[in-house]
Protein backbone atom coordinates (compact mmCIF):
# COMPACT_ATOMS: atom_id res chain seq x y z
CA UNK A 1 0.00 0.00 0.00
CA UNK A 2 2.71 2.42 1.07
CA UNK A 3 4.89 1.36 -1.83
CA UNK A 4 2.13 2.20 -4.23
CA UNK A 5 1.63 5.63 -2.80
CA UNK A 6 5.30 6.43 -3.13
CA UNK A 7 5.32 5.34 -6.75
CA UNK A 8 2.49 7.63 -7.52
CA UNK A 9 4.18 10.70 -6.06
CA UNK A 10 5.18 13.09 -8.80
CA UNK A 11 8.48 14.96 -8.37
CA UNK A 12 10.58 17.33 -10.46
CA UNK A 13 13.58 16.24 -12.56
CA UNK A 14 15.88 18.25 -10.36
CA UNK A 15 14.62 16.64 -7.19
CA UNK A 16 14.72 13.23 -8.80
CA UNK A 17 18.36 13.69 -9.73
CA UNK A 18 19.06 14.79 -6.15
CA UNK A 19 17.44 11.62 -4.84
CA UNK A 20 19.39 9.53 -7.32
CA UNK A 21 22.64 11.18 -6.35
CA UNK A 22 21.97 10.49 -2.70
CA UNK A 23 21.42 6.88 -3.57
CA UNK A 24 24.47 6.75 -5.81
CA UNK A 25 26.69 7.67 -2.86
CA UNK A 26 26.05 4.15 -1.71
CA UNK A 27 28.09 2.94 -4.66
CA UNK A 28 31.33 4.40 -3.44
CA UNK A 29 34.16 2.30 -4.83
CA UNK A 30 37.71 2.02 -5.97
CA UNK A 31 38.12 1.33 -9.68
CA UNK A 32 41.14 0.55 -11.75
CA UNK A 33 41.47 1.44 -15.42
CA UNK A 34 43.34 3.21 -18.17
CA UNK A 35 42.92 6.92 -18.64
CA UNK A 36 41.54 8.22 -21.94
CA UNK A 37 39.87 11.33 -23.36
CA UNK A 38 41.38 13.81 -20.88
CA UNK A 39 39.86 17.30 -21.02
CA UNK A 40 40.75 20.23 -18.79
CA UNK A 41 37.82 22.53 -18.09
CA UNK A 42 38.26 26.31 -17.82
CA UNK A 43 37.54 26.05 -14.07
CA UNK A 44 40.46 23.64 -13.66
CA UNK A 45 38.33 20.57 -13.14
CA UNK A 46 39.44 17.58 -15.16
CA UNK A 47 37.15 15.37 -17.23
CA UNK A 48 38.43 12.00 -18.36
CA UNK A 49 37.39 8.41 -19.03
CA UNK A 50 38.55 5.23 -17.44
CA UNK A 51 38.69 2.22 -19.72
CA UNK A 52 38.65 -1.36 -18.60
CA UNK A 53 41.77 -3.20 -19.77
CA UNK A 54 39.77 -6.33 -20.53
CA UNK A 55 36.51 -5.68 -22.32
CA UNK A 56 37.18 -1.98 -22.90
CA UNK A 57 34.15 -0.86 -20.88
CA UNK A 58 34.29 2.87 -20.28
CA UNK A 59 33.10 5.14 -17.51
CA UNK A 60 33.36 8.91 -17.67
CA UNK A 61 34.97 10.54 -14.66
CA UNK A 62 35.42 13.98 -13.12
CA UNK A 63 38.02 15.15 -10.62
CA UNK A 64 37.69 18.62 -9.14
CA UNK A 65 40.54 21.01 -9.55
CA UNK A 66 41.52 20.95 -5.89
CA UNK A 67 41.73 17.16 -5.70
CA UNK A 68 43.55 17.01 -9.01
CA UNK A 69 46.18 19.40 -7.72
CA UNK A 70 46.40 17.57 -4.46
CA UNK A 71 47.27 14.21 -5.93
CA UNK A 72 49.71 15.65 -8.39
CA UNK A 73 49.22 12.91 -10.93
CA UNK A 74 49.30 14.19 -14.46
CA UNK A 75 46.41 12.45 -16.19
CA UNK A 76 47.30 11.41 -19.69
CA UNK A 77 46.13 8.91 -22.29
CA UNK A 78 47.04 5.33 -21.40
CA UNK A 79 48.02 5.98 -17.76
CA UNK A 80 46.85 3.25 -15.44
CA UNK A 81 45.30 4.58 -12.28
CA UNK A 82 43.12 3.67 -9.39
CA UNK A 83 40.31 6.13 -8.74
CA UNK A 84 38.26 6.21 -5.55
CA UNK A 85 34.94 7.95 -5.39
CA UNK A 86 31.27 7.54 -6.22
CA UNK A 87 28.99 7.98 -9.24
CA UNK A 88 26.95 11.14 -9.67
CA UNK A 89 24.49 12.44 -12.22
CA UNK A 90 25.57 15.82 -13.52
CA UNK A 91 22.31 17.74 -13.53
CA UNK A 92 23.01 20.16 -16.44
CA UNK A 93 23.68 17.27 -18.88
CA UNK A 94 21.96 14.39 -17.18
CA UNK A 95 25.01 12.27 -17.69
CA UNK A 96 26.30 9.95 -15.07
CA UNK A 97 29.97 10.34 -14.16
CA UNK A 98 32.29 8.86 -11.62
CA UNK A 99 33.34 11.60 -9.22
CA UNK A 100 36.94 10.77 -8.30
CA UNK A 101 37.92 11.86 -4.78
CA UNK A 102 41.32 10.24 -4.87
CA UNK A 103 43.45 9.16 -7.79
CA UNK A 104 46.64 7.16 -7.49
CA UNK A 105 49.06 5.36 -9.71
CA UNK A 106 48.31 1.71 -10.15
CA UNK A 107 51.25 -0.57 -9.60
CA UNK A 108 54.61 -0.20 -7.90
CA UNK A 109 56.36 0.31 -11.27
CA UNK A 110 54.32 3.34 -12.19
CA UNK A 111 54.62 4.67 -8.68
CA UNK A 112 58.40 4.37 -8.79
CA UNK A 113 58.53 6.09 -12.16
CA UNK A 114 56.35 8.92 -10.85
CA UNK A 115 58.49 9.21 -7.72
CA UNK A 116 61.68 9.51 -9.75
CA UNK A 117 60.11 12.02 -12.14
CA UNK A 118 58.91 14.24 -9.32
CA UNK A 119 62.18 13.93 -7.42
CA UNK A 120 64.11 15.06 -10.47
CA UNK A 121 61.72 17.93 -11.16
CA UNK A 122 61.75 19.28 -7.60
CA UNK A 123 65.48 18.79 -7.29
CA UNK A 124 66.01 20.82 -10.45
CA UNK A 125 63.85 23.55 -8.97
CA UNK A 126 66.25 23.62 -6.02
CA UNK A 127 63.68 22.55 -3.44
CA UNK A 128 66.06 20.07 -1.85
CA UNK A 129 69.06 22.40 -1.88
CA UNK A 130 71.21 22.32 1.23
CA UNK A 131 71.34 26.10 1.45
CA UNK A 132 67.55 26.20 1.74
CA UNK A 133 67.64 24.19 4.96
CA UNK A 134 66.86 26.16 8.06
CA UNK A 135 68.20 25.38 11.49
CA UNK A 136 65.96 24.77 14.47
CA UNK A 137 66.22 27.97 16.53
CA UNK A 138 67.71 27.61 20.00
CA UNK A 139 65.42 27.28 23.04
CA UNK A 140 62.18 26.90 21.14
CA UNK A 141 59.03 25.95 23.02
CA UNK A 142 56.05 26.07 20.74
CA UNK A 143 55.94 23.03 18.52
CA UNK A 144 53.36 21.89 16.03
CA UNK A 145 53.04 18.18 15.41
CA UNK A 146 51.24 16.23 12.73
CA UNK A 147 50.94 12.49 13.16
CA UNK A 148 48.50 9.72 13.76
CA UNK A 149 47.75 9.83 17.46
CA UNK A 150 46.90 6.12 17.32
CA UNK A 151 50.41 5.06 16.47
CA UNK A 152 53.42 4.29 18.65
CA UNK A 153 55.08 7.34 17.15
CA UNK A 154 53.53 9.83 19.54
CA UNK A 155 54.61 7.86 22.62
CA UNK A 156 58.16 7.59 21.31
CA UNK A 157 58.16 11.33 20.76
CA UNK A 158 56.72 12.44 24.09
CA UNK A 159 58.84 9.98 26.09
CA UNK A 160 62.02 11.43 24.64
CA UNK A 161 61.15 15.09 24.77
CA UNK A 162 62.62 15.68 28.22
CA UNK A 163 61.16 18.29 30.54
CA UNK A 164 61.83 21.66 29.06
CA UNK A 165 58.33 23.10 29.14
CA UNK A 166 57.50 22.53 25.49
CA UNK A 167 54.02 23.53 24.35
CA UNK A 168 53.14 20.88 21.81
CA UNK A 169 50.07 21.32 19.65
CA UNK A 170 49.09 18.15 17.90
CA UNK A 171 46.85 17.44 14.99
CA UNK A 172 45.70 13.89 14.62
CA UNK A 173 46.00 13.02 10.97
CA UNK A 174 45.89 9.89 8.94
CA UNK A 175 49.35 9.30 7.54
CA UNK A 176 48.56 6.58 5.05
CA UNK A 177 45.71 5.49 2.92
CA UNK A 178 43.31 7.38 0.70
CA UNK A 179 42.72 10.41 2.82
CA UNK A 180 46.21 10.89 4.22
CA UNK A 181 47.34 13.49 1.68
CA UNK A 182 44.24 15.63 2.14
CA UNK A 183 44.39 15.39 5.93
CA UNK A 184 48.10 16.19 6.14
CA UNK A 185 47.63 19.11 3.78
CA UNK A 186 44.85 20.66 5.85
CA UNK A 187 46.90 20.00 9.01
CA UNK A 188 49.91 21.83 7.57
CA UNK A 189 47.70 24.70 6.49
CA UNK A 190 46.11 24.84 9.93
CA UNK A 191 49.53 25.09 11.53
CA UNK A 192 50.48 27.87 9.13
CA UNK A 193 48.08 30.04 11.10
CA UNK A 194 49.28 28.86 14.52
CA UNK A 195 51.97 30.54 16.57
CA UNK A 196 54.57 27.79 16.48
CA UNK A 197 58.35 27.81 16.19
CA UNK A 198 58.84 24.45 14.47
CA UNK A 199 56.66 21.84 12.83
CA UNK A 200 57.22 18.12 13.24
CA UNK A 201 55.62 15.66 10.84
CA UNK A 202 55.98 12.01 11.82
CA UNK A 203 55.00 8.55 10.74
CA UNK A 204 56.34 5.07 11.00
CA UNK A 205 57.98 3.18 8.16
CA UNK A 206 56.31 1.80 5.08
CA UNK A 207 56.54 0.91 1.44
CA UNK A 208 56.63 3.40 -1.40
CA UNK A 209 52.94 2.72 -1.92
CA UNK A 210 52.08 3.59 1.67
CA UNK A 211 54.19 6.75 1.38
CA UNK A 212 51.97 8.25 -1.27
CA UNK A 213 51.11 11.30 0.79
CA UNK A 214 54.75 12.00 1.56
CA UNK A 215 55.64 11.93 -2.11
CA UNK A 216 52.80 14.24 -2.98
CA UNK A 217 53.97 17.27 -4.90
CA UNK A 218 51.52 19.69 -3.33
CA UNK A 219 52.44 18.56 0.18
CA UNK A 220 56.15 18.71 -0.57
CA UNK A 221 55.72 22.29 -1.77
CA UNK A 222 53.72 23.19 1.33
CA UNK A 223 56.58 21.95 3.49
CA UNK A 224 59.12 23.83 1.36
CA UNK A 225 57.19 27.05 1.89
CA UNK A 226 56.31 26.54 5.52
CA UNK A 227 57.07 29.70 7.54
CA UNK A 228 59.09 27.96 10.30
CA UNK A 229 61.53 25.03 10.13
CA UNK A 230 60.01 21.62 9.51
CA UNK A 231 61.32 18.36 10.94
CA UNK A 232 60.16 15.28 9.11
CA UNK A 233 60.52 11.94 10.86
CA UNK A 234 59.54 9.13 8.54
CA UNK A 235 60.84 5.63 8.69
CA UNK A 236 61.49 4.37 5.20
CA UNK A 237 63.12 1.45 3.51
CA UNK A 238 64.71 2.47 0.28
CA UNK A 239 63.27 5.51 -1.39
CA UNK A 240 63.53 8.58 0.78
CA UNK A 241 60.14 10.26 0.80
CA UNK A 242 60.25 13.58 -1.05
CA UNK A 243 58.85 15.32 1.99
CA UNK A 244 61.93 14.18 3.91
CA UNK A 245 64.16 15.55 1.17
CA UNK A 246 62.48 18.92 1.26
CA UNK A 247 62.30 19.16 5.07
CA UNK A 248 64.75 21.38 6.92
CA UNK A 249 65.67 18.38 9.02
CA UNK A 250 64.90 14.80 8.12
CA UNK A 251 65.34 12.03 10.66
CA UNK A 252 64.24 8.43 10.72
CA UNK A 253 62.65 8.16 14.16
CA UNK A 254 60.57 10.33 16.51
CA UNK A 255 63.19 10.06 19.25
CA UNK A 256 65.86 11.55 16.99
CA UNK A 257 63.38 14.31 16.14
CA UNK A 258 63.16 15.17 19.83
CA UNK A 259 66.94 15.55 20.10
CA UNK A 260 66.73 18.26 17.44
CA UNK A 261 64.36 20.16 19.70
CA UNK A 262 66.08 19.54 23.02
CA UNK A 263 69.69 19.95 21.89
CA UNK A 264 69.89 23.67 22.62
CA UNK A 265 68.15 23.27 25.98
CA UNK A 266 70.64 20.60 27.02
CA UNK A 267 73.52 22.71 25.80
CA UNK A 268 72.21 25.74 27.68
CA UNK A 269 73.04 24.23 31.07
CA UNK A 270 76.61 23.55 30.00
CA UNK A 271 76.88 26.95 28.40
CA UNK A 272 75.66 28.61 31.58
CA UNK A 273 78.18 26.74 33.67
CA UNK A 274 80.95 27.67 31.29
CA UNK A 275 80.01 31.33 31.40
CA UNK A 276 79.77 31.18 35.15
CA UNK A 277 83.23 29.63 35.48
CA UNK A 278 84.74 32.00 32.94
CA UNK A 279 83.39 35.21 34.31
CA UNK A 280 83.91 34.46 37.97
CA UNK A 281 87.38 33.02 37.49
CA UNK A 282 88.45 35.84 35.22
CA UNK A 283 87.34 38.41 37.71
CA UNK A 284 88.88 36.62 40.66
CA UNK A 285 92.10 36.08 38.72
CA UNK A 286 92.11 39.74 38.02
CA UNK A 287 91.42 40.63 41.64
CA UNK A 288 94.12 38.21 42.75
CA UNK A 289 96.58 39.75 40.34
CA UNK A 290 95.67 43.19 41.53
CA UNK A 291 96.01 42.06 45.12
CA UNK A 292 99.36 40.45 44.38
CA UNK A 293 100.52 43.63 42.76
CA UNK A 294 99.45 45.66 45.75
CA UNK A 295 100.91 43.10 48.10
CA UNK A 296 104.19 43.07 46.24
CA UNK A 297 104.21 46.83 46.16
CA UNK A 298 103.55 46.91 49.87
CA UNK A 299 106.19 44.29 50.47
CA UNK A 300 108.71 46.31 48.55
CA UNK A 301 107.73 49.52 50.30
CA UNK A 302 107.71 47.85 53.68
CA UNK A 303 111.01 46.23 52.93
CA UNK A 304 112.43 49.53 51.93
CA UNK A 305 111.07 51.13 55.03
CA UNK A 306 112.39 48.37 57.18
CA UNK A 307 115.77 48.68 55.58
CA UNK A 308 115.68 52.37 56.03
CA UNK A 309 114.77 51.94 59.65
CA UNK A 310 117.47 49.38 60.06
CA UNK A 311 119.95 51.63 58.43
CA UNK A 312 118.94 54.52 60.60
CA UNK A 313 119.20 52.38 63.65
CA UNK A 314 122.53 51.06 62.66
CA UNK A 315 123.66 54.59 61.84
CA UNK A 316 122.38 55.95 65.08
CA UNK A 317 123.90 53.14 67.07
CA UNK A 318 127.26 53.42 65.54
CA UNK A 319 127.45 57.14 65.95
CA UNK A 320 126.24 56.84 69.49
CA UNK A 321 128.76 54.15 70.07
CA UNK A 322 131.34 56.33 68.49
CA UNK A 323 130.36 59.30 70.60
CA UNK A 324 130.15 57.26 73.71
CA UNK A 325 133.48 55.69 73.08
CA UNK A 326 134.97 59.04 72.33
CA UNK A 327 133.42 60.52 75.38
CA UNK A 328 134.50 57.81 77.67
CA UNK A 329 137.99 57.83 76.35
CA UNK A 330 137.94 61.53 76.79
CA UNK A 331 136.75 61.05 80.32
CA UNK A 332 139.30 58.41 80.88
CA UNK A 333 141.98 60.55 79.50
CA UNK A 334 140.82 63.48 81.56
CA UNK A 335 140.62 61.47 84.71
CA UNK A 336 144.02 60.01 84.01
CA UNK A 337 145.34 63.47 83.50
CA UNK A 338 143.58 64.57 86.63
CA UNK A 339 145.07 61.69 88.57
CA UNK A 340 148.38 62.50 87.07
CA UNK A 341 147.97 66.13 87.95
CA UNK A 342 146.83 65.23 91.39
CA UNK A 343 149.81 63.05 91.74
CA UNK A 344 152.11 65.73 90.51
CA UNK A 345 150.37 68.29 92.56
CA UNK A 346 150.48 66.03 95.58
CA UNK A 347 154.07 65.30 95.01
CA UNK A 348 154.83 68.93 94.69
CA UNK A 349 152.71 70.21 97.53
CA UNK A 350 155.09 72.59 99.45
CA UNK A 351 153.22 71.92 102.62
CA UNK A 352 153.90 68.29 102.19
CA UNK A 353 157.61 69.19 101.85
CA UNK A 354 157.41 71.20 105.02
CA UNK A 355 155.89 68.22 106.77
CA UNK A 356 158.78 66.19 105.58
CA UNK A 357 161.16 68.63 107.34
CA UNK A 358 161.86 70.99 104.46
CA UNK A 359 161.38 74.72 105.14
CA UNK A 360 160.97 77.85 103.11
CA UNK A 361 163.18 80.82 103.93
CA UNK A 362 162.15 84.27 102.92
CA UNK A 363 164.14 87.48 103.22
CA UNK A 364 162.35 90.67 102.61
CA UNK A 365 159.35 88.47 101.49
CA UNK A 366 161.41 86.88 98.80
CA UNK A 367 162.18 83.22 98.81
CA UNK A 368 165.87 82.73 99.52
CA UNK A 369 167.28 80.43 96.87
CA UNK A 370 170.99 81.45 97.06
CA UNK A 371 173.46 82.91 99.49
CA UNK A 372 173.67 85.82 97.18
CA UNK A 373 170.12 86.79 98.18
CA UNK A 374 171.16 87.52 101.79
CA UNK A 375 173.74 89.43 103.84
CA UNK A 376 174.98 88.83 107.35
CA UNK A 377 172.92 90.62 109.90
CA UNK A 378 169.70 90.63 107.84
CA UNK A 379 166.64 89.06 109.35
CA UNK A 380 164.99 86.05 107.66
CA UNK A 381 161.77 84.14 108.18
CA UNK A 382 161.98 80.39 108.14
CA UNK A 383 158.65 78.78 107.41
CA UNK A 384 158.13 75.29 108.73
CA UNK A 385 155.02 73.13 108.65
CA UNK A 386 153.34 74.71 111.61
CA UNK A 387 154.72 78.27 111.78
CA UNK A 388 157.50 80.79 111.15
CA UNK A 389 160.82 81.19 112.85
CA UNK A 390 162.30 84.69 112.82
CA UNK A 391 166.10 84.59 112.78
CA UNK A 392 169.19 86.76 112.00
CA UNK A 393 171.97 85.79 109.69
CA UNK A 394 175.16 85.33 111.71
CA UNK A 395 177.39 83.76 109.22
CA UNK A 396 177.37 82.84 105.52
CA UNK A 397 179.39 79.92 104.32
CA UNK A 398 179.92 78.56 100.91
Amino acid at each position, binding site marked *: MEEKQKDEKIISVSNYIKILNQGLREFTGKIIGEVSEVKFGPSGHVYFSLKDEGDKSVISCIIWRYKYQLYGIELREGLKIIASGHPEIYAPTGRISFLAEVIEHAGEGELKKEYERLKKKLSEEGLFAEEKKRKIPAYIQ*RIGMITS*LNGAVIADFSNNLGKFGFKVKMIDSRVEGQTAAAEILSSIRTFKKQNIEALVIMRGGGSLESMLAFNNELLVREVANFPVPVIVAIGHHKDVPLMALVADIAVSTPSIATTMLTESWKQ*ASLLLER*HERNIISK*YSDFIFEKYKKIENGLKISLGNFKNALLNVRIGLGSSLDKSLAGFSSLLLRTSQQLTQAEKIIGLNDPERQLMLGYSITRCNNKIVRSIKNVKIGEGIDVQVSDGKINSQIINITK
Partner: protein
Amino acid sequence: MVEKNTDTKNLNNNLKKLSEITEWFDNQGEIDVEEGLKKVKEAVALIKISKERLKAVENEFEEIKKDISAEETNK
Protein backbone atom coordinates in the same frame (compact mmCIF):
# COMPACT_ATOMS: atom_id res chain seq x y z
CA MET B 1 51.57 32.89 25.01
CA VAL B 2 53.17 36.29 25.27
CA GLU B 3 54.63 35.43 28.64
CA LYS B 4 56.12 32.22 27.29
CA ASN B 5 57.56 34.20 24.46
CA THR B 6 59.48 36.52 26.73
CA ASP B 7 60.43 33.54 28.84
CA THR B 8 62.10 31.85 25.91
CA LYS B 9 63.57 35.10 24.73
CA ASN B 10 65.02 35.69 28.18
CA LEU B 11 67.12 32.56 28.14
CA ASN B 12 68.33 33.41 24.69
CA ASN B 13 69.07 36.98 25.68
CA ASN B 14 70.61 35.96 28.98
CA LEU B 15 73.05 33.63 27.28
CA LYS B 16 73.84 36.31 24.73
CA LYS B 17 74.50 38.84 27.48
CA LEU B 18 76.63 36.34 29.35
CA SER B 19 78.80 35.70 26.35
CA GLU B 20 79.14 39.46 25.91
CA ILE B 21 80.32 39.74 29.50
CA THR B 22 82.78 36.89 29.00
CA GLU B 23 84.09 38.66 25.94
CA TRP B 24 84.38 41.90 27.85
CA PHE B 25 86.62 40.21 30.39
CA ASP B 26 88.61 38.61 27.59
CA ASN B 27 89.18 41.91 25.86
CA GLN B 28 90.18 44.03 28.84
CA GLY B 29 93.87 44.38 29.33
CA GLU B 30 93.56 46.19 32.62
CA ILE B 31 90.17 45.70 34.24
CA ASP B 32 88.42 48.47 36.05
CA VAL B 33 87.64 46.82 39.39
CA GLU B 34 84.34 48.64 39.85
CA GLU B 35 83.21 47.99 36.30
CA GLY B 36 84.30 44.36 36.60
CA LEU B 37 82.33 43.92 39.79
CA LYS B 38 79.25 45.40 38.11
CA LYS B 39 79.62 42.89 35.28
CA VAL B 40 80.08 40.02 37.69
CA LYS B 41 76.96 41.03 39.61
CA GLU B 42 74.98 41.23 36.39
CA ALA B 43 76.31 37.84 35.29
CA VAL B 44 75.44 36.21 38.59
CA ALA B 45 71.87 37.48 38.36
CA LEU B 46 71.54 36.30 34.76
CA ILE B 47 72.95 32.89 35.63
CA LYS B 48 70.53 32.55 38.52
CA ILE B 49 67.50 33.42 36.40
CA SER B 50 68.64 31.16 33.58
CA LYS B 51 69.28 28.23 35.89
CA GLU B 52 65.82 28.73 37.28
CA ARG B 53 64.43 28.48 33.75
CA LEU B 54 66.42 25.34 33.03
CA LYS B 55 64.88 23.40 35.88
CA ALA B 56 62.62 20.59 34.73
CA VAL B 57 59.34 21.98 33.43
CA GLU B 58 56.65 19.56 32.32
CA ASN B 59 55.69 19.70 28.67
CA GLU B 60 52.15 20.50 27.67
CA PHE B 61 50.37 18.57 24.96
CA GLU B 62 47.25 19.94 23.37
CA GLU B 63 45.33 18.42 20.53
CA ILE B 64 43.90 20.88 18.08
CA LYS B 65 41.51 20.22 15.23
CA LYS B 66 42.55 20.72 11.68
CA ASP B 67 40.84 23.52 9.98
CA ILE B 68 38.89 21.71 7.26
CA SER B 69 38.41 24.90 5.30
CA ALA B 70 42.20 24.99 4.96
CA GLU B 71 41.89 22.01 2.69
CA GLU B 72 39.61 23.99 0.47
CA THR B 73 41.70 27.13 0.24
CA ASN B 74 42.98 26.14 -3.15
CA LYS B 75 39.60 25.12 -4.59
